[in-house]
């Protein structure tokens, strides 16, 4: 296509993390520098948070607030922390999209019952993440525009990620449970509660008195809703509910939309219909047990999820990965990126109304790649292939030849075919061009990452900005497109899939011999105390894992910075003003997977 911007292959140079932290310290002398394992961070008091963020944004060049999360230090057993400190710590990770490099980390200690100011005036992208912290930890963000539950429902009892909150089938804080072994009594968890269900109720609660509190603030109280006043043609705006069971929402996602005529005037995403408690379960699992659970986050690309988690744990433990394993990781992650982009292109077209045909063509080649995954790891989708310090198994005989044929012959052919079929199609062009526009600055301030901002002309790709694995050895471009509309978001995925094909071709050609796993690969180990944030460029954006270890065999905190979840910040601003049929396509072009959105 004619309007591809010349791919930028360089970034301005890595962010000077120490210097940026010094800037904050200069402005706020009370901020306390702390070192926890591989991470250095600044501890900032709640009332100084906004000032610190402003310094970081305006002087430090950190324009992307990547992740906000919280840790409850109630039962922390490590030695590095004072026992009587504040109970919670809210953690902010910030990056510079222009400079790349490592992140700047801020911690804000907050005690139970205290509140802290919202970051949304400085970084609008804090919106969904602060709601998540409120939902799961019960911390109040003063001034947040819409602080309601997001993954659970209004009226839910308690804040489940708190360390003292236990679910109905609760056994022990850590697996493996002592009660199961060696006594090995065969007990179904259903027998633990009288009603046989995974539920618990507060004392003194009467089901008959219960009223469900449900409010959808932006949609129900939208100031722009005119209700026909002052217009010669009397119209009334209507609230339309899309989902959670809706064929266009890519899973169990719900959009509550206020429309006037056909134009969307307000939209509110509602999620949590697939909230599977990854983080709570992850804190009870051992480090290794979490690996197959990461497969089920973004279930279309288990390989890149594995990598994100492995990377964070390797950072924490200081493990080196053998060269061959690094190459295998690149091959698997890039194949999985191709799978994801094919899948998402097929389903954007589904949303455009081209039911089935493009999707069926697109996922044909996916089957070939899944066959490759299956023969190397044993499963089509839930590969569980990576281990800390390498990969699980070496390639079976004949695998490389088959893969070579797939990436040299079949995939380029299939991508060309999709390009011919779709890119010039008049309907795709009219429905896609100019729809769902947001400027690059807006997208970055909303914390959007991945193909979405590359389709807005920002060459921000972690493989290039903060190279991990052996990505610095391959010759590939970061394609960008200028228009930031649905068409460009479709087309950027095609271009990226082509680049991934190039990377796999080079990786297969240069695949070295040697070990695939460093160390012994046992099943119990204790990473040293500290915290680490590992991130990879997942097919949907920045996939990060924030881990805190207190030196025990289980992660103390296991948080997933899910790109599809945070990209949804942009959904409402992108959709308002377009037709309701465009809302479906705009959602499709964000490319969400509910397993990752809701976790």
């Amino acid at each position, binding site marked *: 296509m004619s309007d591809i911007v010349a791919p930028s292959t360089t970034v301005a140079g890595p962010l000077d993390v120490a210097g940026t932290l010094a800037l904050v310290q200069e402005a706020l002398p009370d901020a306390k520098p702390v070192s926890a394992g591989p991470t250095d961070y600044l501890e900032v008091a709640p009332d100084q948070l906004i000032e610190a963020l402003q310094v970081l944004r305006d002087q430090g060049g950190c324009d992307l607030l990547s992740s906000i999360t919280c840790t409850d230090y109630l039962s922390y057993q490590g030695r590095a922390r004072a026992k009587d400190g504040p109970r919670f710590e809210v953690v902010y990770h910030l990056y510079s999209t222009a400079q790349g490099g490592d992140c700047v980390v801020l911690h804000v200690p907050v005690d139970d019952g205290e509140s802290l100011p919202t970051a949304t005036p400085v970084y609008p992208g804090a919106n969904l993440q602060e709601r998540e912290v409120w939902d799961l930890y019960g911390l109040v963000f003063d001034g947040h525009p819409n602080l309601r539950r997001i993954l659970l429902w209004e009226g839910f009892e308690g804040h489940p990620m708190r360390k003292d909150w236990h679910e109905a089938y609760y056994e022990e804080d850590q697996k493996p449970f002592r009660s199961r072994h060696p006594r*090995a009594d065969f007990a179904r968890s259903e027998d633990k509660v009288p009603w046989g269900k995974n539920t618990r109720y507060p004392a003194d609660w009467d089901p008959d008195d219960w009223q469900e509190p449900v409010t959808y603030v932006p949609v129900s109280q939208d100031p722009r809703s005119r209700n026909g006043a002052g217009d010669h043609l009397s119209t009334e705006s209507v609230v339309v509910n899309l989902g959670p069971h809706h064929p266009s929402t890519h899973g169990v996602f719900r959009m509550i939309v206020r429309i006037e005529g056909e134009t969307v005037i307000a939209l509110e995403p509602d999620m949590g219909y697939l909230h599977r408690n990854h983080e709570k379960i992850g804190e009870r699992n051992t480090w290794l*047990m979490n690996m*197959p659970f990461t497969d089920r986050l973004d279930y279309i690309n288990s390989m890149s999820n594995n990598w994100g988690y492995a990377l964070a744990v390797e950072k924490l433990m200081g493990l080196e990965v053998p060269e061959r394993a690094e190459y295998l990781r690149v091959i698997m992650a890039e194949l999985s990126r191709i799978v994801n982009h094919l899948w998402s292109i097929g389903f954007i077209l589904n949303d455009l109304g081209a039911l089935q045909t493009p999707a069926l063509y697109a996922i044909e080649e996916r089957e070939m790649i899944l066959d490759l995954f299956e023969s190397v790891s044993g499963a089509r989708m839930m590969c569980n292939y990576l281990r800390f310090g390498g990969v*699980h198994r070496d390639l079976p005989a004949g695998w490389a030849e088959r893969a070579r044929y797939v990436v040299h*012959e*079949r995939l380029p052919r299939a991508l060309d075919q999709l390009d*011919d*079929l779709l890119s010039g199609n008049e309907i795709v062009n009219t429905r896609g061009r100019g729809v769902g526009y947001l400027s690059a600055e807006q997208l970055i301030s909303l914390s959007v990452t991945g193909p979405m901002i590359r389709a807005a002309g920002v060459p921000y790709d972690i493989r290039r900005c903060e190279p991990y694995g052996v990505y610095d050895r391959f010759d590939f471009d970061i394609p960008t497109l200028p228009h930031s509309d649905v068409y460009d978001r479709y087309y950027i995925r095609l271009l990226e899939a082509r680049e991934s094909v190039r990377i796999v071709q080079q990786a297969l050609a240069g695949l070295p011999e040697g070990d695939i796993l460093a160390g012994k690969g046992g099943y119990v180990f204790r990473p040293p105390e500290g915290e680490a944030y590992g991130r990879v460029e997942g097919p949907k954006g920045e996939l990060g894992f924030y881990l805190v270890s207190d030196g025990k065999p289980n992660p103390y905190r296991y948080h997933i910075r899910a790109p599809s979840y945070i990209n949804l910040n942009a959904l409402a601003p992108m959709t308002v003003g377009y037709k309701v049929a465009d809302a479906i396509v705009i959602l499709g072009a964000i490319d969400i997977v509910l397993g990752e959105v809701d976790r």
Partner: protein
Amino acid sequence: MFGTGLLKGLGITFKHLVDTYKDDIQSTPARYQGSDDRGKGLKVIDQPVDQEGLLTIQYPEERRLLPERFRYIPMLIWDTETDEERCTACGICAKVCPPQCIWITRATDEAGKPVTRPQDFFIDATICMSCNYCVEFCPFDAIKMDHDAELASFERFPHLVYDKGELTVPLDYYAALWPTQYAEEQERRAQEAAEARAKEEAKAARAAVKKEEEEAPAPEAKLSRAEELKQKAMERARQRREAQS
């Protein structure tokens, strides 16, 4: 010109339609190449990589060729060479299982002393996430992944909680499903057995030497102390079991 994109797209779909038949006609004799019929007239299809498209697998008459490493639900190995199960009820699989879907009870002999055999072994297939950790960390090659995915049932409980009888398969079954890995494993086991024998012999020789010297009360005392502790622990466990039932 408006409409050329649409026509081009239609051309591609038409080519796909023609290709479907082209592939079919060209490859009909080759379609079942290398297939085995599993004694039931089933055909196993190995998708050729150099084809334009994909072969449709007409399940249940045709099957997809499953790769050796395919994993579904674990199975227990009955070692036909020694005519006993390989599992020693060490419990590592139950420990590493991420969703904790394995329960093992250790068998006891007539005197009530635990022996290294499982009395019972349950896997709850409604929880199992097919992650392969039990296989990966089993030190005795006793638990392996089955390829059988046809497990649908009309009832959940107890049909989908597999007990030892349902899980156990003979070694030959495993050898047929996992030929490469089986061969590697046999080689390793043979080597290990040889080493163990050598060690045993060396130990016996050492013991003979020691016997001649007739002095080794210290280790014996240590041993008896360990034995005593073990007995005590077992007694406690027995009491707890009784209190339970």
